[in-house]
């Protein structure tokens, strides 16, 4: 059974005068350990797709099953709980908690999971060392560069030991070197922890490193190719 099964997914936004069909009959499957880029021009539905898979938004039609759990059956706090334990997120603008240090940002997710202080500190340090920030664990986001912040965000996404990580344009705010370093890091983590990564991007550097590329256009899967 695939880790993520998506069947006939539609998403229509009715908030505008003319309803917008952001996703149109999307059917996809993702296996464990994949390193996939979801690509397409602006407005093609990449972010909407990630929001659906991440359980942040509800589809108008269709089904998303993650590791045997149909997301439609999870409501309110159950869905939040599911995200906490199964899905990691990396955002374009890093979105770390500004008043927490790097260590605390990573630790915080494990606190939500109810993990003991010693265990979460140990794991947070391990993860920060794994992303190359072992010497900056007590720095706050404001004291870190964009690349370093995004590394902390990756460590945070992995802290809950998720089944997969959704990254929405993770390199969009990074310079070339930081973007390359981040991609290398994510590849290593993907290999080492067998964590599935799904990116939305239109950054050629990310597309080049992906092992599978799903192309969306006007909300439809235009291409799905394994590299």
């Amino acid at each position, binding site marked *: 059974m695939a880790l993520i099964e998506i069947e006939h997914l539609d998403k229509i936004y009715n908030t505008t005068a003319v309803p917008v069909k952001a996703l149109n009959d999307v059917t996809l499957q993702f296996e464990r350990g994949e390193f996939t880029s979801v690509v397409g021009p602006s407005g093609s539905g990449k972010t909407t797709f990630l929001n659906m898979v991440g359980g942040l938004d509800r589809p108008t039609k269709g089904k998303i099953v993650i590791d045997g759990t149909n997301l439609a059956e999870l409501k309110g706090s159950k869905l*939040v709980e599911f995200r906490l334990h199964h899905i990691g997120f990396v955002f374009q603008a890093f979105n770390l908690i500004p008043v927490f240090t790097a260590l605390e940002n990573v630790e915080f997710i494990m606190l939500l999971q109810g993990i003991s202080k010693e265990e979460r500190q140990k794991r947070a340090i391990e993860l920060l060392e794994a992303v190359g920030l072992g010497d900056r664990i007590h720095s706050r986001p404001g004291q870190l560069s964009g690349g370093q912040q995004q590394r902390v965000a990756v460590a945070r996404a992995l802290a809950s030991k998720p089944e997969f990580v959704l990254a929405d344009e993770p390199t969009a705010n990074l310079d070339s070197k930081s973007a390359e370093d981040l991609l290398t890091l994510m590849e290593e983590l993907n290999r080492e922890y067998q964590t599935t990564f799904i990116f939305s991007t239109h950054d050629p550097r990310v597309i080049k490193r992906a092992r599978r590329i799903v192309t969306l256009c006007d909300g439809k899967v235009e291409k799905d190719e394994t590299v």
Partner: protein
Amino acid sequence: MYLNLSWRNIWRNKKRTIIAVASVFFAVIIAVNTRSMQLGSYSYMIHSSARFYTGYFQIQQKNYWEKRSLENTLLQDSIDYKKLRNANYVKALAPRLESFALISFKNTTRVAQVVGIDPQMENEESGLKERLVKGEYLEPQDYSGLISKGLAQLLGVSIGDSIVLYGQGYHGQIAAALLPVKGIIEYPIRELNNTMFYLPLKAAQDIFLTGNRLTSVAVMIDDNRHLEKAKQALSAVIPPQYTLLDWKTMLPELHQSIQFDNISGMLMLAILYVVIAFGVFGTIIMMINERVKEFGILIAVGMKKVRLLIVTFWEIVFIAFLGAASGLIAAIPIVWYFSLHPIRFTGDVTKTFDALGIEPIFSFSTDPLIFLNQALVVFLIALATFIYPIYFMKRFEASRAIRS
């Protein structure tokens, strides 16, 4: 860690937090001082009125208060002073025989309030001896009196002169006596200063032919705060045929004016509270709205709304607590100073006080409840602003917030 997060969150924008804390701080200072001055002044008015006139309570024969007649007196032997003294909060007792009479000296006659007293007990109750400005204080066996200064001046009496007392005694008999003036006392209130004449109880009972009778036993307690408890304690020990009147019944004008003033004071406080509530509310709205995206992210990564609300709740608690606690600390020395150095009014303002028969003094109360209540009210008002985060979170959608 949640507390840590809340604490650090409030310092993200130091200036705003300081302004919010300062608004609570000043609200508590103003509220505590205003209330302390109000309640302190009421307490002082009540206490001084009770000391001057009535005591906090009077034990009387039923119907005496309505008719003020010597026919409605109580028997002195029926009063168990020991039991009354042992009642909770009771500080002093003063048996009295009171009546109105004409007092004459040479060609001048005035109406006076004649009060037969136990000199020692009366002094304990009303501090009468401290009011002596000339002559000597009474002894129980004396057959002489103390006259108030204003009345003495109206009559042209001085120490050693004898006045003629003429009035109605028990059962309609004539009460008449020639009494030497042993001392002159002075009251700060004109009404009392122009009318009072004291004589020993035994002499009064002989002159008014009442035998072993009293019109009342005045009771002083430690503080008006204990009025109701003292009432219960006293009611349990007075003979059932007698009644216990409190100062509110005996001084209805004072009670009503305090009630009226209290309501206007409360209204002022309510306005202050509303201003504070909106100030804190504004801060909370800003704190929430500037973190919409962050809330979205936190919910996306697995933080439940309830936990976010808890974090926000603690932020409000911290702001409210810092303001309330610092306000309390700052208010204490101010109130303390004015409780030791009450504000004494002079000039035309005193006329208003005179009309109520009270000294023109604004005294401050140091009752701990005032501090606690005001801090608690301001704190609760600040907490009430938590309604906004609840409303906000109920409608919150993480995906939309992240896109914002």
